[in-house]
């Protein structure tokens, strides 16, 4: 076994060639994941609210968007944004940006479904009571419905974040300098320790994702206890 190759390149796995060169490795993976979940939350919230709207002109486009994105492999979405940016904008987007946009669009469809499930899980009386006290639909949503629904949805959001973190590895396919690319680069250069390198990479992803999964389970227990007390 050649674990020394892993040790010698470990800083490259973590931050890439930074500060002498571009940032990469695990740091880039985290940036993609955090940026992705931030963008996907707002886009997904918008699409999810459109999806539960009574107006067909809002509901149908949201439904079509969700079904199309959820029925397409992420790799296809990544290719769409990477190869079509030149057609739409007339010039190529940097790889990291087009990967980030693809991740945001892809994840937002799943977030929208979480938002819809969360809002529909609340008792109908909440909305009726809020409207009854004189709030507009918009006010009732932002002050009464969403604060409760979003709170209950936190574990699902964390789970979606775990999926997104794993999905950032696909950015490698269009050439973004992140953890998986760092692994293939080191593997191509050394050629003698693929087993050790890919086990190390898998463990790095695992540490992040497992901690988040456990955190989401903890939150779920806390929220269940909190709701049981309220009843």
């Amino acid at each position, binding site marked *: 076994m050649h674990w020394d190759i892993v040790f010698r390149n470990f800083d490259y796995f973590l931050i890439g060639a930074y500060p002498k060169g571009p940032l990469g490795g695990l740091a880039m993976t985290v940036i993609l994941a955090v940026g992705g979940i931030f963008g996907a939350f707002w886009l997904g919230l918008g699409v999810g609210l459109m999806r539960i709207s009574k107006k067909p002109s809002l509901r149908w486009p949201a439904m079509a968007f969700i079904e199309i994105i959820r029925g*397409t492999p*992420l790799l*296809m979405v990544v*290719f769409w944004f990477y190869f*079509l940016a030149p057609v739409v904008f007339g010039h190529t987007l940097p790889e990291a940006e087009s990967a980030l946009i693809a991740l945001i669009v892809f994840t937002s469809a799943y977030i929208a479904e979480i938002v819809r499930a969360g809002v529909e899980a609340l008792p109908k009386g909440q909305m009726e009571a809020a409207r009854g006290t004189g709030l507009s639909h918009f006010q009732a949503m932002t002050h009464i419905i969403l604060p409760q629904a979003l709170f209950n949805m936190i574990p699902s959001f964390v789970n979606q974040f775990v999926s997104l973190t794993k999905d950032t590895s696909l950015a*490698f396919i269009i050439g973004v300098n992140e953890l998986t690319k760092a692994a293939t680069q080191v593997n191509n250069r050394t050629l003698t320790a*693929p*087993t050790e390198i890919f086990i190390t990479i898998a463990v790095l*992803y695992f540490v992040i994702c497992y901690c988040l999964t456990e955190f989401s389970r903890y939150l779920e227990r806390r929220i269940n206890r909190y709701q049981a007390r309220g009843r």
Partner: protein
Amino acid sequence: MAYQFDFGQVVSGEYGQWILSGLGVTLQISGISIVLSLALGTVIAVLRLSKVKPLVWFAASFTEFFRNTPLLVQIFFWYFGSYSVLPEAVNQWLYARDFEFACGVIALTVYTAAFIAEEIRSGIFSIPKNQLEASRACGLSFLQAMAYVILPQAFRVIIPPLISQFLNLIKNSSLVMTIGVMDLTYMARQIEAHTFHGFEAFTVSTLIYLTISLIVSLGVNLYNRRVLHVRSR
């Protein structure tokens, strides 16, 4: 520079053949992996529910590890790094066949089995505990009780989430293009490289994936309504 759309070139002639053969490979690798992952997932779920500590521990770490690492990294691990952890005889057997395809099948099977094991476990939990106790009291062994009493009931509830896992598997199978399996996504990428008509190639292959997904989810909705009497949406 205006972009000239040309769908005819992509769907007919040689490139149309490419798309069809890619679709064939996608269906083939997904079909094989679905059967294998269902078998492996069931075994892992039953191990996790057994009372034997080392087996429970093994099954739990199996599911946690493979659920929490990216599929792409797992594919690379099996493709580049498995030769030193697998026995020599298995390596020879794999090299004698389509090695890329075999690695794709192994990666998809193991990854999806971890998810399927969790779905089956939660399905088994939904069966009241006294069912198992009653069947044990009738003189059935643990495995017999599982095979004849618990699993047949549990699978009725598990089928919808299971099918959505299979659907995920079909979509995830697009990742095997990275190790050179010539599936639908690989062919679309190849046509893009040959003709620069990426837009048309990706539209056609996206539509194919979408059609598969929509047909399957319609089937699940029908099953929910007819068999489980749940109103979907």
